[in-house]
């Protein structure tokens, strides 16, 4: 008979690379110089591809587009840790993830121009379609994780979500299942501080998002999401845990959405520009570049050359995306189900015949 503490918890935060480009060498993951350079290249590619998308959108060549500006480290750092057979469940703001696993950029652009063919995942990858219904896809990751385990497949299900998504019921149901079944699943939350106009502090009263893991009996950690090395390390550890039967991990990457929510949004309506400025100093590319420069792995001319090379690659991707023929009515019917009903066949005929 008493009032006694029966369980205790703590949530850790991992930081390795600071904004000045200094690293905690004890925590530095064992990456070769080539790998470190590759990480930087992916960060830069993401930034440039994102910039290009925004300008295409302004020219009316893409539809509404959600920018990844500022979140490159969270995306690249995590995706870089994956195996090519791992399954990826993107949300809708993961350009850096797609690029890191070599998804055809032309397809990515095509999707955002309103063409479902952009979501046809190449056979060598296991990426689920971009998910618009926020938070609903964690369950699919749970299902695939269970399937992989059933087949003794070492693949891990890696699901991306935003801070807003943590409020959805499906987030809870999925991670609770991940706990119960000890699933090989890693949930990577890009806490970019905003869900459109709703700030992180109005999304939940929990001090951190990472601590939500405690509700499910799974591992939770917060990382500096603008630190590509910390994100990489936390993801690699989580993947290792998942592959060795240690169950699921929830990783909160603290980062910031430097852009408007999408090209249809105007963030000045609801957030303080000073806040954006403060985050500018924490830029994920800059710190990685400083780190490489400190290590003499990088200099101004490398930078210029790389930018040129990447821009050429973007040009090609845009050309490729736009070279494709317009979809036809049949594309709308074909994938509704395996075999169209007699009514659907009639409709297809009417549609093919009669369209203006």
């Amino acid at each position, binding site marked *: 008979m008493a009032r006694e503490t029966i369980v205790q918890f703590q949530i850790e935060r991992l930081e390795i690379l600071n904004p000045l480009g200094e690293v905690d060498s004890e925590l530095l993951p064992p990456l070769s110089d080539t790998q470190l350079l590759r990480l930087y290249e992916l960060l830069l590619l993401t930034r440039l591809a994102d910039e290009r998308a925004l300008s295409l959108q302004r020219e009316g060549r893409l539809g509404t587009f959600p920018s990844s500006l500022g979140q490159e480290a969270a995306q690249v750092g995590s995706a870089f840790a994956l195996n090519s057979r791992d399954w990826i469940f993107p949300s809708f703001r993961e350009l850096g993830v797609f690029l890191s696993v070599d998804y055809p950029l032309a397809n990515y652009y095509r999707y955002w121009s309103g063409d479902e063919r952009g979501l046809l995942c190449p056979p060598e990858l296991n990426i689920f379609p971009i998910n618009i219904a926020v938070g609903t896809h964690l369950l699919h990751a749970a299902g695939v994780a269970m399937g992989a385990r059933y087949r003794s497949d070492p693949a891990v299900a890696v699901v991306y979500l935003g801070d807003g998504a943590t409020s*959805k019921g499906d987030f809870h149901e999925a991670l609770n299942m991940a706990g119960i079944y000890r699933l090989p699943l890693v949930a990577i939350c890009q806490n970019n501080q905003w869900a459109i106009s709703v700030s992180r502090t109005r999304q939940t009263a929990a001090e951190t998002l990472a601590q939500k893991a405690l509700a499910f009996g799974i591992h939770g950690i917060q990382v500096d999401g603008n630190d590509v090395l910390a994100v990489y390390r936390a993801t690699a550890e989580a993947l290792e845990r998942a592959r060795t039967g240690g169950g699921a991990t929830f990783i909160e990457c603290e980062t910031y959405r430097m852009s408007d929510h999408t090209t249809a949004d105007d963030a000045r309506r609801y957030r303080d520009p000073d806040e954006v400025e403060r985050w500018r100093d924490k830029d994920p590319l800059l710190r990685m570049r400083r780190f490489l420069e400190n290590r003499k792995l990088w200099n101004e001319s490398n930078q210029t050359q790389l930018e040129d090379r990447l821009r050429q690659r973007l040009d090609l991707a845009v050309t490729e995306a736009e070279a494709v023929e317009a979809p036809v009515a049949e594309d709308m*019917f074909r994938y509704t189900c395996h075999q169209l009903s007699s009514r659907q066949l009639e409709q297809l005929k009417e549609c093919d015949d009669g369209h203006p």
Partner: protein
Amino acid sequence: MAILNLVQAINQGLQQALAEDDRVLVFGEDVAADGGVFRVTEGLYEQFGETRVFDTPLAESGIVGLAVGLAAYGLRPVAEIQFLGFTYAAIDQIYTHAARLRARSRGRYTCPLVIRTPYGGGVKAPELHEESSEAFFCHMPGIKVVVPSTPSNAKGLLLAAIADPDPVIYLEPTRLYRLLKEEVAEEAYITPLGQARIAQAGDQLTLIAWGSMVERSLKAAHNYPVEVIDLQTLSPFDRETILASVKKTGRLLIVQEAPKTGGFGAELAATVAEEGIMSLRAPILRVTGYDVVTPLPLLEDYNLPSEQRILSAIEKLLSYP
């Protein structure tokens, strides 16, 4: 009287409801400082403050469930779901609870809430942003379904929905938000629920439509002796007006955006086939979206009933003697 578009008319309706009745609360994702992603709630947060107009977390079932509690407590919640495609997560709260609270509590509690949500195609928006699944809600006893089609009825129907003692789903046709402008009376007024509107008189064919299809049907039917009925309320729908019109015209065409099979048009056709078949001179035709997964923008024009498709159906029906 000012010239308003649909967004402005709804905004004005909300503003007046908030001003007149302190039981009215407006909430949803991004409705406060941001004024809603379509700006429908613009200025309300500034005018009424955060106890009356507030943002919610990203949780659609939560938004509706919260509204059920607020309504039962005696308030008049007007909840926004950002797009109809995201109400699917809230269907349990809508059908299990909002629809049934009066019945379950034998009248002790009621549920006078309004769920506003943009719906329908034609705006080149991403996945789930152009759904047209009103039929689900029309099959839920206890739920009313209202669809405006002009700035004037948008305001009047909204105020009627807020005043209604039962839960109402209020679907805002996104394609019309800024497409239609007209004079809207400044003062608060009510367009009664459950009553259709004759948008064009005619005596050879009855065409029933709602939401954004009213605009398209009117264009198509312009030069024909077609009676265009703008349903306005889908549930409960105005059987009397429909049956009277069909009795006069003998021909019926239904235009709906939603996939054909199981859409609300089926109920209208079935009702006439049951209660008005003796006056029919021709089959009851439906021009509808196809039975496909709602396509992304590049394909959407194939799916949304076009003026041409409506026109063909009109001509086909008129060719029956």
